[in-house]
């Protein structure tokens, strides 16, 4: 029986006191314990940013890669070993800025990856510049007059790209977030989990008080049906006095990418022994060029 202790890391987090990443770390651990997924059965592949250091603070297979690229690394890992669960954890700059293209392509391919984005709407590690999800007009060191860009809408993008599981969590709602991570892990295929994550140092306008006053749970919203993609897309634009969290869209599962690769039907690629080609295989290759 796995417990939280089994996931305890050797390192102490370098995050600021009150950082939303603590909630995310705890929620991931809770979800893995609840689903009884052992540390060696999952790889957490991260980008670069404060939150991407997360696997160092757990006991888990972790690959802390490049800024913007963890989904591509995760795709390769899944294709070569689909027996290994893969979760990607990265920030909004990583996932929706540098890695935006990989986000859309991974979603449309439907690889079985949980994509958790720590969305604090600011660059933390590089000290406070505006991010792809920052609101227009935000004054930061790189936008002293206020940013002109309109923010990315990750949920609407994921729905448009064909993702079949699109959700938003909030690091201040630990149990709810752990539940969402568990649902995302259960979902066969790509699952986007955008997590509202207060940055207590560089983005004080989106602190816990801001979110606590505004978030509401979609599953408690009368009449909201997460199977309705059009409604989900509409809901993805709601931001203001009320901010929805929960599962925006959960479609009927469609075949994952991995399931459709002929070479993977016989089991994970890495579990097959690597052997020299047999004589008849060599002959068949040579016959093509003789």
């Amino acid at each position, binding site marked *: 029986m796995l417990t939280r202790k089994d996931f305890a890391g050797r390192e102490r987090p370098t995050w600021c006191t009150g950082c939303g990443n603590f909630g995310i770390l705890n929620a991931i651990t809770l979800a893995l314990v609840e689903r009884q997924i052992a540390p060696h*059965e999952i*790889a957490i592949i991260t980008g670069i940013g404060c939150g991407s250091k997360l696997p160092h603070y757990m006991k888990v297979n972790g690959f802390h890669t490049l800024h913007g690229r963890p989904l591509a*690394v995760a795709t*390769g*890992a899944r294709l070569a070993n689909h027996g290994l669960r893969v979760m990607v954890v990265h920030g909004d700059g990583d996932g929706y800025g540098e890695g935006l293209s990989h986000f859309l392509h991974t979603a449309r391919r439907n690889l079985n990856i949980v994509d958790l984005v720590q969305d604090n709407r600011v660059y933390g590690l590089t000290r406070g510049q505006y991010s792809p999800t920052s609101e227009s007009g935000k004054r930061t060191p790189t936008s002293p007059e206020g940013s002109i860009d309109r923010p990315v809408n990750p949920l609407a993008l994921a729905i448009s790209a064909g993702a079949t599981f699109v959700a938003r969590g909030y690091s201040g709602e630990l149990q709810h977030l752990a539940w969402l991570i568990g649902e995302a892990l259960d979902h066969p295929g790509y699952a986007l989990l955008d997590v509202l994550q207060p940055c207590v140092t560089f983005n004080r306008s989106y602190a816990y008080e801001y979110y606590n006053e505004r978030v509401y749970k979609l599953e408690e919203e009368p009449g909201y049906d997460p199977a309705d993609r059009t409604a989900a897309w509409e809901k993805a634009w709601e931001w203001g006095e009320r901010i929805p969290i929960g599962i925006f869209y959960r479609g009927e599962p469609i075949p994952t990418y991995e399931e459709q690769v002929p070479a993977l039907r016989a089991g994970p*690629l*890495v579990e097959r022994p690597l052997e020299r080609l047999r004589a008849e295989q060599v002959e068949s290759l040579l016959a093509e060029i*003789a």
Partner: protein
Amino acid sequence: MKESLTICIGGEAGMGLESSGAGFAKALTRGGLYVFGLPDYHSRIRGGHNFFSVRIAHHPLYSHAEPVHILLALDVETVRRHIGSVVPGGAVVYDAKDELPEELHRPGVNFCPIPLSALAEERGGRAVMRNTLAFALAAGLIGFDPAYIESVVRDNFARKGEAVVDANLRVVEAGVQAGCAFQTDFPFRMEAVPEAPRRLLLNGNDAFAMGALAGGCRFVAAYPMTPGSPVLQWFAARAGEYGAVTKHAEDEIAAVNMAIGAAYVGARALVPTSGGGFSLMVEALGLAGMTEVPVVIYEAQRPGPSTGLPTRTEQGDLLFVTYASQGEFPRFVLAPGTVEESFRIGWQAFNLAERYQTPAIVLSDHYLAVAYRTIEADALNFDEVTIDRGSLMGREELDALQEPYRRFRVTETGVSPRAVPGHPNAVWSTTSDEHDEYGAINEEADNRNAQVEKRLRKLEGMAREVPGPSWYGPEEAEVTLLCWGSSYGPVREAVDRLNGERTGRANMLHFSALYPLPLEATKAALGRTKRTVVVEGNATGQFETLLRAYTGWSPDGAVHRYDGRAFTPEYILRRLPFAV
């Protein structure tokens, strides 16, 4: 000099020159001849001027050559561009419907107006069959048995049905007849050798892909880019049969990161590309270096910078791939010289990458990647292929693991025992940040030194592991031509021609391991030279720069080529007197 002759077919893009040229080259190979076939094309789908030259001989060929014996001109432009290369006694076959301006005629050259399109349409039903007709005509001219062309036609068109096969066979017959009519005026012959053993015809891309497959490569990710993408296509066509996964990624950055992800979990992963794609991969190359993930990148060079000459050749990326990335880490740079070596390096690169847990870059170029060559059936030696995964930990070793696993354990060789994710005894994090032995981020100076030195220590073993330069030609020679990668063939033939005039004039020292340089073998070999000329396909002498940097040695001269065309023996011989 032993005899060879070149048949060159030219026309517009979209006329199917390359596929028909490759088919003809196969027929010649089946007929016991040695072939060197080189497609030359522009970066466009239609129009322009493309050609395919097929050089043939009764002895092995390592290079194309400039003189043309038969010019098959599907348009007037072909005559205009190539008439200067046609030898006295040679033939220019052109479509009788084309008006050939007077100034294109040359005394001593046979001009053969043949209704190529009309005849193809009449006998085969389609004017596009004129390529087949023209090649069959060339076969008739040189006295080559058309049965071999017919056998290739049958193989190539079988899946299109009997009617298509028959139509093509009628076209072949018409071509051969037309050729025979001119045979008496044509002084060059190249008859088939019916008793010849089975031989193979392939290009460097095919050979490398085959070697990689034989060496256990089962994951290939790429974004299409000339001339590297055929390697992805080669694997994709065989993926189901050999249990390989191929991924046409959204861009080169994704492709290389996918390969790193696949290698991280234990697959042998390859990324084929060209210089532009490699440019995009540089950050990930550093990731593989830092996290010690073995990945193989096949970079088939074309002339840059930027888009450059997309369908042409150059050896201009050597220093770039050798030093690409911020920071310092070991890597292999291996540049095959021939198709045989492309095959061998194809499997060896995976062993080297895995044994040293670091990236291996295989540096080919457009010329080697696309030029077809006839080789002996046993020249691709599948028997010597080994799959050596180095210090990859097996299940038993992991089961027995007592202490916490140290992925980056500091060792004497710099290589640490490697686990892949999935075993409860080896659960660890790895990172692109500097890290300690366990893989935890660590910025301390002592740890930094220990890890940098651990990684760079691998270079000592790597330099001992890679092959030293290879000699060709007489041991004592007045001048040694130094070269690397695909220049092997043209330089080898230039050496043959020099020694054909007077033995002992020249030899060749060819390098395929460029980084790390096998220093001891290199210094020993350089010590045996008199005068030296570096022959390389770039403008600034990149290989020479490497040699100077690591050996302190200086050559006496250099021959460079950077017009996007491959070296020919003639080009080298023309430049050589001015080089020293």
